[in-house]
């Protein structure tokens, strides 16, 4: 005779015996004293709108650049501005001056956390 599965299910699965399966700490169960800088790099997609305008102009003028000087200049200026800003940001990050406030970059955070590490 076949026993319906529902009868077993009501009992549930027996828990593991802790003695038989000891707990292993594979990753340390406390936070690291550092953060990675990945999140700070931000999105790299810049000047999309300028690019769109440029493409529209180029397409209208059959890819003769002479007629799109304004758009080209704007596009290049935008990209240059973006790169310059990125460069400057990187420079300030690399200086790593610790200052109070809640908007800290990863280097500053790391410096803080080195001073107040997690207890071992």
């Amino acid at each position, binding site marked *: 005779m076949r026993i319906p599965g529902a009868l077993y299910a009501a009992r549930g699965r027996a828990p593991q015996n802790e003695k038989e399966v000891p707990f292993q700490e594979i990753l340390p169960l406390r936070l690291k004293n550092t953060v990675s800088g990945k999140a700070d790099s931000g999105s*790299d*997609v810049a000047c999309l709108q300028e*690019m769109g305008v440029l*493409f529209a102009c*180029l397409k209208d003028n059959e*890819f003769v650049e*002479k007629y799109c000087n304004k758009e*080209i200049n704007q596009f290049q200026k935008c990209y240059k501005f973006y*790169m310059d800003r990125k460069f400057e940001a990187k420079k300030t990050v690399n200086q790593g001056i610790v200052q109070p406030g809640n908007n800290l970059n990863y280097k500053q955070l790391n410096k803080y956390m080195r001073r107040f590490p997690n207890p071992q």
Partner: protein
Amino acid sequence: MGFVPYTTLSSLRTLKCCRLMSMYPPHFAEPILKKDSEIINKKDVSHVPIKAAPNDLSDSIFYGVLKNKLLKYITKKGNGSLAKQLLTDTLETIKRTQIERLNLINAEKENVIIDTERILVNAIENSRPLLQLSEIKRGGVKYQVPIPLTEKKSYFLAMKWLLDAAREKDRKVHLPDKLAWEILDAAHGQGRVIKKKDDLHRQCESNRAYAHYRWS
């Protein structure tokens, strides 16, 4: 053919940031190229240590920033003297062609440019691309994504394309001749290099939908 003043060319020479592995500490100043000008205040630089002068810079009439850069791209296996010879031959051919053109036409003699360096600058400015296609993998599919170019890279690409076009030739044609033709063509806004640039722009335009995929 519009002449673009190459004020931006300075970016080809001076580096933006101090190099990390530079042998000079960051407070060392760049050497000054021009003998008389550029020094604003001699007192300012009197106690500043200055980097040793590179041996390819000079204040002679034979020096040009763009020429110097092109020279380095022509060089193969460090044979700079050969590269110099080739470039000089190229410029000579360009000049001869232009003077012969000048002698042929009767009117509008002003329009023929004989200054070889100006022709070279025109050619390179005309063949500089605005965008580049970069392959980016998203969701297992590779997309050709248009990304903007830095100034330096666009100069590099322009010169590289000119040289590539010149090197693709019959064995019997010499490099200076072919390079001279390519440069003259590009300076007049035609020829293979300009076509290559236009093709790239067209491709970028057709792939504009992927533009937001870019990172890094």
